[in-house]
């Protein structure tokens, strides 16, 4: 489900390692993206300002101008999504990256599948942000199913409130809106928690665990949040089939 129906999504890759850069360039090109590759921080910043890209993919340690400075400069004028890549895996680097306005942080080494999932998650979130708010009200008023209340930030089933927290509600609402569709963790982090996904980050899993417990507590069993291993989560009514 690629959002950019008009033309291919364009990606600017700023990566100084020739081997990795060439590989990413080639692989993303094969996946259906239009990739521009640039090896220098300063040059990359100028290109990002001059042309309209959908996503910028950038290393942190770069010749010329390092990735964090490029990001700082870029954020003064542009709100284009930025994914940082780095072999610096420490939590502190991740946090400083996010604080400067990065949309995601991908620790090296990563697989191409992982990279693609992250890019798609961001593109999809951007597309959702641009679309006017969907009117799904009738769907929520379904008598026998769960009732989602946007004002209470909670769900209602058979006279009982589940007592969800804000984040849990946002997560359930997102899964509910895209019911029966597997949503990647990268996308859910972007959409619900508004940050990038990291392998050791368990917040989303914990929210899912709490949602399951709370839905069970109010006796709702028609559909449940299921884990799809290696992919993400889905709100589904079927016991099998995935």
């Amino acid at each position, binding site marked *: 489900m690629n959002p950019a129906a008009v033309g291919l999504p364009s990606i600017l890759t700023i990566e100084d390692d020739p081997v990795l850069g060439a590989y990413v360039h080639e692989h993303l090109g094969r996946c259906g993206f239009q990739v521009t590759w640039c090896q220098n921080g300063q040059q990359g910043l100028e290109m990002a300002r001059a042309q309209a890209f959908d996503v910028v993919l950038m290393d942190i340690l770069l010749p010329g101008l390092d990735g964090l400075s490029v990001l700082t400069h870029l954020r003064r004028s542009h709100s284009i999504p930025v994914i940082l890549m780095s072999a610096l*895996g*420490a*939590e*502190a680097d991740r946090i400083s990256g996010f604080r400067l306005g990065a949309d995601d942080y991908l620790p090296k*080494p990563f697989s191409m599948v992982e990279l693609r999932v992250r890019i798609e998650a961001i593109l999809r979130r951007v597309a959702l942000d641009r679309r006017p708010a969907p009117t799904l009200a009738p769907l929520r008023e379904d008598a026998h199913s769960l009732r989602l209340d946007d004002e209470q930030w909670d769900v209602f089933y058979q006279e009982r409130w589940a007592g969800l927290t804000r984040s849990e509600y946002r997560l359930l609402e997102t899964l509910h809106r895209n019911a029966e569709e597997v949503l990647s963790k990268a996308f859910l982090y972007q959409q619900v928690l508004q940050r990038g996904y990291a392998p*050791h*980050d*368990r*917040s989303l*899993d*914990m929210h*899912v*665990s*709490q949602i*399951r*417990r709370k839905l069970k507590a109010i006796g709702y069993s028609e559909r449940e949040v299921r*884990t799809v*291993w290696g992919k993400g989560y889905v709100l589904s009514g079927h016991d099998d089939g995935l």
Partner: protein
Amino acid sequence: MTTGFKASLKRLPGKHSLFWKLACLLIAFCLLMIWLSWSWGRYMEQQNAYLSDEARVTLSGYAVGAEQAWNRDGNAGVDAWLQTMRQRESTWVGVIGNDLQSLSSYPLSDTESQRLTFLRGLDWPVSRHIKGLPWLKIPFAVDPGVGSLVIELPQRFMPGRYQVFWRVVTNGVIPGLFTLLLCIGLYRLLIMPLNQLREQANAWRADQLNTRLSHDATSRQDELGELGRAFDHMSERLQGTMVLQQQLLRDMSHELRTPLSRLRVACDSEQDLTQLRDRLGREIDAMQRLVEDSLQLAWLDAERAPLPKEDIQLQALWDMLRENACYESDWPASRLPCLLATDCWVRGNLNALAQALENILRNAIRHSPDGGVVCLDGRRDGAYWHLWLEDQGAGIDERDLERIFAPFTRLDGSRPGDGGFGLGLSIARNAVQRQDGSLWAENTGQGLRVHLRLPAR
């Protein structure tokens, strides 16, 4: 009101504090100094106010001479005697009768009569505030009723000639000496322990990390004792870190070279491309896990910034971990029961706690027999939750209960090649300790029980 008082009491230094020692010492010293200079100064002043024995003998001798002269020749005798006296003493000398009239043939002048109204005895103190020389009256020795010798005290008999000297001694030298003693005492009390600390710091500089402070320095009850104990604790930690680092480096070089050499062998020997790719994939996965685990352990150990904390419900956390564990190990969820109630909330960092518990759980599952159960239980213990995770494996040797938390420890019993690097439990312990908890293991007889102590919500 009472709470405010109690709070201010609490702010006072403890009873073993150096404050009290110093306060007592200084107050005692001040009081001693004041008493000393006051009492001694007075004593010396008094001593200096009286005429010396020599002066008394001489002056009494004069009185005897005057009496003898009067008895011998009356007025003329006194005149002659006074004549000789004038050559001996430069000050005024006279002999008077009981009617305060001169016994010589020359009557007293007005000024002299005036002076006669206040005469001192020989044994009276002489005030140092007096102007000029005092006049003394010395009665005749044999018949005091007849008359007296009156003499203006000669300068050389004037008491208090060494007054300045004694004042310097009592107000300067002796307090100075006592202060010196106090300084020596304070130096021994305060600076000597610091010197010991300095010596130890110097020993560290020379890489002698095993040196410790003397027993005297660490067994003191006051702040310096505390400092000494903290110093010892620090050197222990430093030594531990150094040992750990060296151990880690040695283990790491071994662990990193092993998969590399396997890769090299695969690269050289494997002919089939798909098989080679499979093998490469496996080796790279293992290596990535190893590198990530080692780096994480190093980070956990190096990073000292506090982790962000939140309230975590253990049941929900266990559900999450159980789902992963069941997927990884093909166990049914019923073999991983949680006996904790819903009110078990702890305060900690979600990611760190999840990882710690996950590592412990993986370890328990790996060492469980077929059909074994791994169970999480616990109870509230004051401000803490005491949790334990129990498996039904063979348990481990009592000597190894602590060793399993050291990095790269793989016990002989563990199956080789099952993917563990012996890092899981050390990461778990580091992660738990970083959120103010503790982690230890115990043999129950039915298996291994790993205990966790975490701050409650």
